[in-house]
């Protein structure tokens, strides 16, 4: 069953490399995962080459390629996730190894969902399609299927950009103001929308309608603030910020907790009570030990009167010195 061999591919024509792993410290966009279900260790895939923003004429052009394995792996598929931030012209290609180009009985189909795509560019051993993605209608999953005796397919998922949300709940108090922030890393959204959750629905927040309650500020291109004034218990809950990009939307979830002033007041009063008790104990102990000292001095005075005069003076000196030396 070893009809196809495989060898490491050569890099394709590239524009510029982008470092996809370190955009911010969290998943700003889905990292390239590919679900390789074949055991072939030498299966390599292309690194994504991404054009620099400055070089964008009207539209960026990117090529993505998947190299199909040769081993007998039937019914397997290779999945590649591609995240796009702006309108682009994409070329997706499936390639076989050079060595096995003599297999003419191969049939390759490109599909989007169930729809077959006709315009396939075929070269020696690769089959590719070209797509113009200008809006989110063209997003989705595209697959190329190689049929010979077995069927191997690769799937490309095209998606828009996600971004980081602040995970911790924001705590605020009744009557106070709360500020919630959403940031987009790397890519600039066209518009921001805020939603609040009412039961299971999401209702858009209209800040012009409720201007004394909600204020939405776009601080910079990538950052949006939602300020909620005069908080009440009803404002407690989950809020969503949504960023609209050219090619899709992404949502972030934020939680707001509204507390009453009683909540921190309880620990406050507890600690103040503890302080007062401790200070009282310290002072009482001091008064008690001073009284004890006084009593001891009086005792010494009484007993030393019965001694001779010289001893008396010594005793006085001794006792007072000793006691004072605490």
């Amino acid at each position, binding site marked *: 069953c070893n009809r196809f061999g495989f060898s490491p591919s050569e890099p394709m024509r590239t524009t510029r490399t982008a470092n996809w792993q370190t955009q911010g410290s969290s998943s700003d966009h889905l990292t390239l995962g590919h679900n390789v279900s074949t055991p072939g260790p030498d299966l390599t895939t292309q690194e994504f080459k991404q054009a620099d923003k400055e070089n964008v004429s009207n539209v960026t052009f990117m090529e993505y390629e998947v190299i199909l394995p040769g081993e007998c792996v039937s019914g397997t598929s290779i999945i590649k996730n591609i995240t796009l931030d702006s309108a682009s012209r994409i070329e997706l290609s499936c390639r076989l190894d050079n060595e096995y180009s003599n297999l003419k009985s191969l049939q390759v189909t490109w599909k989007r969902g169930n729809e077959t795509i006709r315009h396939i560019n075929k070269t020696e051993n690769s089959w590719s399609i070209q797509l113009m993605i200008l809006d989110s209608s063209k997003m989705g999953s595209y697959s190329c299927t190689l049929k010979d005796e077995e069927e191997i397919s690769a799937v490309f998922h095209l998606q828009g950009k996600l971004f980081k949300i602040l995970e911790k709940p924001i705590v605020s108090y009744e009557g106070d103001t709360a500020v919630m922030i959403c940031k987009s890393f790397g890519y600039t959204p066209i518009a921001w929308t805020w939603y609040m959750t009412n039961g299971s629905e999401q209702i858009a927040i209209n800040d012009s309608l409720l201007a004394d309650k909600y204020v939405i500020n776009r601080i910079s291109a990538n950052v949006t603030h939602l300020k909620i004034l005069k908080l009440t218990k009803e404002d407690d809950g989950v809020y969503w910020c949504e960023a609209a990009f050219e090619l899709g939307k992404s949502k972030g979830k934020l939680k707001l907790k509204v507390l009453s002033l009683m909540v921190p007041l309880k620990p406050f009063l507890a600690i103040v009570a503890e302080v007062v008790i401790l200070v009282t104990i310290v002072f009482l102990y001091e008064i008690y030990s001073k009284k004890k000292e006084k009593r001891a001095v009086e005792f010494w005075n009484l007993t030393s009167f019965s001694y001779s005069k010289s001893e008396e003076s010594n005793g006085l000196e001794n006792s*007072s010195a000793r006691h004072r030396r*605490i």
Partner: protein
Amino acid sequence: PPSNAGRAPSPPDGGWGWVVVFGAFISIGFAYAFPKGVAIFFKEIQDFFGTSYSEIAWVSSIMLATTYGAGPISSILVNRYGSRPVVIFGGLLCGIGMVSAAFCTSILQLYICVGFITGFGLALNLQPSVIIIGKYFLKRRPIANGLAMAGSPVMLCTLAPLNQFLFDNFGWRGSFLILGAILLNCCVAGALFRPIGAATASVKTQATEEGKDALKEEVTKDAMEMCSSMNTPMETKMEEEGGKDCCEKINQYLDFSLFKHRGFLIYLIGNVLMFLGFFAPIVFLAPYAKHIGIDEYSAAFLLSILAIVDMIARPTTGIIANSKWVRPRIQYFFSFSIAFNGACHLLCPLASGYTGLVVYSVFFGLAFGMVCAMLFETLMDLVGAARFTSAVGLVTIAECCTILLGPPIGGTLIDTFGDYKYMFIKCGVVMVLAGTFLFIMNYYNYCMLAKEEKERKAKEEDPKSVRTENEGRNNWNKETIRDGPELEPLREEREGLKKEVNGT
């Protein structure tokens, strides 16, 4: 012990003193750790008020500046009222400051509540705590100082996660409210600071009036020394008998005559220079680590390593400084630790990767702890516990400027050159210079003190300087005060020191 029976009491060096050390531990811990700990809230406050980062950073700077700048005021109050009332009042101020900060509606109000009021309260905590250790300890003072100063890293390690927990559960306003209550614990620490020295005044006057034979005269002389070194009320009484003039009256409250004291001046210049490079590396350690590619949590962990090593180093240094080999030469040990600190910074740029930075953090923590543990001990050693009250106030206000300048200068260096190594080099050079300066000048100081001791011994033989008469006592007292009783700890040690210095 019967040998002390006829003498006036010396500092307890134990007993209730250890309770006082515990109180000072808490008080000093809050004073140093609180400004750093409160920085956790800055991000949220910055977003809430919509200000820039530098405007928020002013809160910390104002707090630090007030804590150090209000030193003289603190000293005056302690001179007048003693440590205990001042610390209790300071604790109350801190609490009020933070509680009012919880209700602030503008960044300016935050500056006042958190910056000024809380900062001033912390100043009223810091100075008296250090002063009262000098009153309770003599023989074991370095250990007491080391233990008390260990409060700072321990509090910092406790406050940092506590602040994070409070913030997650109560937001910044609730956290400030609760922190205000926590700061009230300084009042408890203050309550522990039982006054000492005032009660012994009457006993001492008794002892001095009785001195007739040679033994009693010797005893009296010691008593007077102890008395003058410990007893400010006694001192003022003497000065009243001698006749007051305007300068003396001011000196009662804040001893400006310290500026004629050789040891004090050496300490002042050396320390002011040292603080230029002292705090900047801590401020920039985590950013530097991130700059060379280490992740956020590991960078924060470096600071934790530093704090833990610091925690252990401070009491250990106190114990070492108390040993009989180091105590007479404690100034050299101090200069050495400053220079060691500087050397660490100079070697830091050579550290590559995370392991190198961990090693640097360990050594830096060690050096930092050593310097901090002896910071006040050496000043006490130079000027004596009586004048220490005023000395610490004057020193802190002078240090205030360089402490505030240090990190911004470092920041400017980093921004100009784009490289952190120049900041480390600058800090290292400054500290090595300070250490060397202190080493040389203290050597000179020890020689001069030995010379003066010889002269004094010669004068003592002269029967004209009668000790039992008031006037003679006055002048002689003033001499001993001026020369600083650094030779006072133990007779034996004093002899040993003289032999050492004479031999060099």
